């Protein structure tokens, strides 16, 4: 038996995984999708811009009068609502993530990746990196529009850097959640609907109106749901005001969402897909 000739099998070195290299490859793939079909990004960034204009120009006069005693009105409301719109921009982008994951799954290309000797998580990290970059492009566009219509943040360079870093953390967390949502959906349609709560939750937070203007039950929900501390933190950082305990609560939520999304995604990716 010991002398039996054996076919030259792959050397052990060939069995090593290269998660970073594979993730970079997969990220390039997703960025290429994005560059080739810019309309997808434009549609995703369109929604928050429409909401921004709607809330500032249609509701802004009345809402602005409601949130402050002063004569601020519309111009004050721009300042108030932009953090919520930024969060909505991220939510809109991750809806795109869920859709593109679901498309991959229906296309059969994921089955090819599964039968290849590659670091499996790279398929998912590719989507994550692509989406984070896409979210930042969208955030830059939305911020540009906000500045054009009178958003005047008080943050200095430090505040801007902190805001950027904080939004990166939020994006990262929501993208991982969305990667799981995209996998759990069996169709592209479901994938575009499942992240809907992420778009709606900012409305039930301190994003559009202060929570103390809400009825008791709703107010309780709004104060304890994760988007309120996230919005309060971005608001504080952008306006150069103290963020207080909101910052830690927000980071805690993000860590929880990111970890949960990551573990859920990994489990879903490892499961068997009968077809």
């Amino acid at each position, binding site marked *: 038996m010991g002398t*039996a000739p054996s076919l030259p099998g*792959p050397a052990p070195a060939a069995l090593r995984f290269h998660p970073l290299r594979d993730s970079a490859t997969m990220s390039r793939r997703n960025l*290429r999708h994005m560059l080739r079909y810019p309309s997808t990004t434009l549609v995703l960034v369109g929604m928050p811009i429409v909401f921004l204009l709607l809330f500032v120009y249609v509701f802004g006069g009345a809402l602005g009068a409601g949130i402050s005693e002063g004569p601020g009105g519309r111009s004050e409301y721009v300042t108030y609502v932009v953090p919520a719109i930024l969060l909505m921009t991220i939510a809109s982008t991750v809806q795109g993530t869920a859709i593109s994951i679901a498309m991959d799954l229906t296309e059969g*290309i994921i089955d090819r*990746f599964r039968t290849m000797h590659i670091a499996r998580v790279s398929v998912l990290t590719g989507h994550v990196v692509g989406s984070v970059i896409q979210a930042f492009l969208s955030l830059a566009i939305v911020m540009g529009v906000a500045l054009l219509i009178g958003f005047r943040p008080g943050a200095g360079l430090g505040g801007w850097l902190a805001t950027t870093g904080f939004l990166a953390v939020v994006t990262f967390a929501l993208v991982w959640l969305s990667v799981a949502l995209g996998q759990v959906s069996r169709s592209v349609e479901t994938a575009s609907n499942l992240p809907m709560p992420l778009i709606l939750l900012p409305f039930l937070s301190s994003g559009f109106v202060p929570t103390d203007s809400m009825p008791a039950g709703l107010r309780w929900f709004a104060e304890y749901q994760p988007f309120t501390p996230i919005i309060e933190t971005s608001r504080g950082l952008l306006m150069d005001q103290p963020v207080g305990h909101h910052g830690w609560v927000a980071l805690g939520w993000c860590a929880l969402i990111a970890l949960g999304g990551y573990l859920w995604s990994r489990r879903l990716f490892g499961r068997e897909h009968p077809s």
Partner: protein
Amino acid sequence: MATAPPETAISVTGLRKSFGEHVVLDGLDLTVPAGTVYSLLGANGAGKSTTVRILSTLAASDGGSARVRGHDLASEPDAVRAAIGVTGQFSAVDSLLTGEENLLLMADLHHWPRRDGRRRVAELLRRFDLVDAARRPASTYSGGMRRRLDLAMTLVGDPQVIFLDEPTTGLDPRSRRAMWRIVRELVSTGVTVFLTTQYLEEADELADRIGVLHHGRLVAEGTAEELKRLVPGGHVLLRFADPTSLEDAERALDTSSRENGTLALRVPSDGGLRSLRAVLSRLDDRSIEVEELSVRTPDLDDVFLALTGQPGAEKVST
């Protein structure tokens, strides 16, 4: 018995798989020597795709064991993945990327150095007749082109064992022939091909050995010739213009049988000239006019029908 013989590319023992109540694989055994083409032949739902999904690590089996190039599927899936290439029934290309980008993606995932990767991709595009379409998104490709790109992507990693799940289903005859040519070229380079098909012609054209899969079991296995020998299906088909001629002929040829509902008669024959002449001279002697004559040698269709027509057929060893 711990390891398969080294010259064996795929060995499967007692493989079982059910989806709920539905038994898909019911104790499958098969062995594929390295460097050969094995074709799993069966109707839709016979368990072909499930077999490929299990052997390519996409699905887990419920029982039994399988080795690919000596690596156990359950305990060494990574080693199996490093040795195989899979082209499934449903195209696994990235429609949003061009053909060339799809291939380069594979080259990157196999960690080919940039220049080697590009050279290899260019060569595959040439070989698979995709040079003109290389810079177009795969979403614009025809069915045949997609399938070729799909297989080319599988080959970027130089797999030693290739699984092809119904590689020509839905292709037009020309694309099918192109695919067959490609598979033959592959085999000449020494790789092992495991192919599933519902086309008997395809198995006959390509495979060294054929396994007939029915209700999750192999009901027959052997070379195309061996399988054909199992079924005495050769005959001459005679068609007549009117019922009178038919009846006359039936009396003249005592071994004949009627084709139900037609004016045709089936006469057992080996298809040789001598037996043909005997039939014709008998008809001539009685001046019976034959409108049309065709000779049919047994093909895999006959084998397939004979073996799977009766449920629960015993496995025939050859």
